[in-house]
């Protein structure tokens, strides 16, 4: 019966497509009955009504489809209800504004992870959606999705990143054979990742393709060796000093600035030492002579041509200072680093010294230099407690919002109390616009303690800010963080 009916319906459909003017309407199959006297159009419409009613009423469910595997049992208990509400709030109607939501969600996820909880099932879809858009959430999200979340993400290609374990952690290194075929940016990224765990293997990879890679690739890959650089890299860098390509040579020179025990450092030290002397009654003035024309070996070490507008000898001096061992200065003058920096007046030499101190992360020289110059990179070489005092001094004289946050950002959050206080005090004394503030709330949010919330709110009130102002958002965020922590206890 079904077959006859199907054939009839197909034929009826055929007649409908081309029209009853051109095709006869098929007769209704037994045992169905139809009006005998009806004109063709009526017969077709009658048939359509009858056939449609029969077919849809008799529709059978599909039977041979595989039933999906149920999600495995979760291993962790769901987050407590107060925490669930907070996550819901952050994901659907964040009170802290778009700039700080990711940060607040990350706090939630990390707290949940540490307390041994999982994301509740009803928040899985919003969280996966949010972390699909914001990569920064992924690592923390993965840890608390639990089995249900991983299972769910496995069923939806849009959430495939969940299963790509460790792309952010760097364990997905390509096979060396495949590595050579990747795009240069990706090859460099992989080298950087590999250098954090196995620097020698990273260098070996770069060397394996050295003779075949074009100049831009050699430059990029050599620069990637800046991660985890050590004296073991010196032979390759020495070789690169003779490279055909200027970019490769320059990269090698810059990297060798970070290796004070290298042969190049000794060579440059030998050139620099005779130029340095002390003068004055107390021998406290440090004097540097400008270098003479370099020979071929010195040019190879980086004493090349200066760009237009730059003093040629000044550049050479800077390169010498950046590349020579720092002890050259103390030996030649008999002074300690602080005294050398205090007695030196040559801008080129000082600039070179800053490079040398930063590249070698030398805390003693960095401390000495940062007393004379404000340079975040120099401060980065200092232990945190030494940074704070200098940052505070800087903030107390800051004239703009960017100066305050730029200085404060040198100290990783949460900031020590004295620094937080300095930041808050200065914030009340400089002018800013909401836009400028929106750019820096992230720094303030990571640095300031929750107890700063009332002060921030007061600041917002005195500035007559609107409720959506970044300052209110920041105050909300600072209030929210301890609430999130509390909600897991």
């Amino acid at each position, binding site marked *: 019966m079904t077959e006859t009916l199907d054939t009839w319906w197909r034929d*009826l459909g055929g007649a*409908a497509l081309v*029209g009853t003017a051109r095709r006869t309407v098929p007769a209704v199959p037994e045992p169905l009955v139809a009006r005998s006297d009806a004109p063709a159009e009526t017969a077709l419409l009658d048939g359509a009504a009858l056939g449609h009613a029969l077919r849809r009423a008799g529709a059978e469910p599909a039977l041979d489809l595989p039933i999906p595997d149920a999600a495995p049992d979760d291993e962790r208990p769901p987050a407590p209800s107060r925490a669930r509400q907070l996550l819901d709030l952050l994901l659907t109607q964040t009170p802290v504004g778009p700039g700080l939501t990711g940060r607040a969600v990350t706090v939630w996820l990390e707290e949940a992870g540490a307390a041994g909880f999982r994301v509740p099932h009803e928040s899985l879809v919003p969280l996966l959606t949010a972390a699909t858009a914001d990569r920064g959430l992924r690592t923390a999200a993965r840890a608390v999705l639990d089995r249900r979340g991983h299972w769910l993400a496995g069923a939806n290609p849009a959430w495939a990143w969940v299963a790509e374990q460790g792309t952010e952690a760097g364990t997905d290194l390509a096979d060396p054979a495949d590595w050579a075929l990747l795009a240069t940016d990706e090859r460099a990224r992989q080298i950087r990742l590999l250098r954090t765990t196995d620097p020698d293997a990273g260098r070996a990879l770069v060397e394996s393709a050295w003779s075949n890679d074009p100049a831009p690739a050699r430059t990029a890959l050599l620069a990637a060796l800046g991660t985890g650089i050590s004296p073991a890299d010196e032979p390759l860098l020495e070789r690169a000093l003779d490279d055909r390509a200027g970019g490769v040579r320059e990269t090698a020179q810059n990297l060798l600035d970070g290796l004070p025990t290298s042969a190049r450092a000794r060579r440059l030290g030998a050139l620099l030492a005779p130029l340095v002397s002390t003068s004055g009654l107390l021998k406290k003035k440090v004097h540097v002579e400008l270098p003479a024309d370099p020979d071929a070996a010195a040019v190879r070490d980086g004493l090349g041509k200066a760009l237009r507008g730059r003093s040629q000898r000044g550049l050479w001096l800077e390169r010498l200072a950046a590349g020579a061992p720092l002890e050259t200065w103390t030996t030649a003058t008999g002074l300690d680093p602080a005294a050398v920096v205090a007695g030196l007046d040559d801008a080129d030499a000082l600039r070179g010294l800053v490079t040398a101190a930063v590249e070698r992360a030398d805390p003693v020289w960095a401390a000495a230099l940062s007393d004379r110059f404000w340079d975040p990179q120099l401060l980065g070489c200092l232990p945190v407690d030494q940074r704070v005092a200098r940052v505070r001094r800087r903030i107390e004289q800051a004239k703009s919002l960017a100066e305050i946050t730029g200085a404060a950002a040198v100290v990783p959050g949460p900031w020590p109390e004295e620094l937080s206080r300095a930041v808050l005090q200065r914030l009340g004394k400089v002018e800013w616009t909401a836009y400028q503030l929106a750019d820096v709330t992230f720094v303030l949010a990571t640095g300031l303690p929750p107890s700063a919330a009332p002060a921030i709110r007061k600041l917002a009130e005195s500035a007559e800010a609107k409720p959506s102002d970044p300052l209110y958002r920041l105050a909300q965020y600072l209030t929210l963080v301890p609430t999130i922590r509390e909600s897991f206890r």
Partner: protein
Amino acid sequence: MSRWSLQAVEKIAPDAASLAAGRKLATPGPWSETGSTEALVWGKCQGSGKTPYQVSIDLNGPAYRCSCPSRKFPCKHAIALLLLWVRGDGSVADVAEGADFAREWAQTRAERAAASAARPAKEVDPAARAKRVEDRLARMDAGLEDFGLWLTDLVRAGTVAAKRHPYAWWDGVAARLVDAQLPGLAEQVRDLASEIHRRDDWADHLLGRLGLWWTATRAWQRRAELDERTLADLRVCLGWATATEDVRTADAVPGRWQVLGAHRSDDGRLQQQRTWLREVESGEIVVVLDFAAGANPLPAARLVGSVLDTTVARYPGSWPRRALFATEPALAGTDATLPAGTSLRAALDVRAATWAENPWAARVPVLLADAVLSSTHLHDATGAAVPLLPAESPWTLIALTGSRPTTVFGELEETGFRPLAVGPAS
């Protein structure tokens, strides 16, 4: 009463813009004199003007009042206040007594409800009414006669020719149907026009639609012979609305109605909200329909799982009956679980039986037992499966069930199933 969930507040928002505006205001900053009791939430919100807006919310309705001039309902202030309230962080604290302005309003509301219940129905002039009906019938007669001719012309020339017509041609047909006071048919013609340009199986789909419309045309010719119920079904198909006053006074049943599930759709012309209710004792299922055109807001959605103490009045027609709230619903509970379901095959049988009664029924409400949701299908314990309707994302329900067998409530249509609510996983 316990505080609502955040989702519950989101669902009452009339549209996304109001919700977004509410979220912006949901900070303690602009609020003062806030508080909540068992039945009321209130607060004052400082807007751009000098006097703050007074916002009161009756949680039992729920009903909203705000002194702001917004035509959105509930307005952003009410939404913001609820958002603050559900947060439960003390910004809207529980107190024993409501604020004066909120209490007064709740009292007036109660008095007005009592008054309207007591007021007799509006007087109608039977003669004028009969005349109006007669005019309408004449117009519908002529319109359906035309429509029948259009159908026969269409199959004489062939549906391939019809597919070549631009949308405007179909729209013209729909406009003539509207003129003939057949808006229901007009809507279906417009839907079909977009369907046949979208679907691969358009020819089959079109033939089925032609069959249904032909049935409607023929049934109208013989309307004197139709029983009351079928005539009512046909009226719904054609778009001849039943006046709400007529419904309110007719077939009303008091009871405790559980909200099984709700669905909102917006096709650009019209927003529709369907709320499925089930009487807890008798098990009868009805659907409450709300419509809003253009930017007007839909009435607040009922919370799924809540139980409403109310009298619903049913529209004429066959199962599943449309209904309206004859009395203001009172919330009697919030955490009702779904009742037991059936197999998918039994649900398909229900659907077929519904069509046997009413060939124009678009969907039937079904409760399925031990059903498993995947991203594309719903499977039951016997291994039978039905595709999910493509418009909605099933992921939230899949996340909740983990593809474990659960009771699932949803709408079964001709081409598939739309899950609306799930029970706890077994």
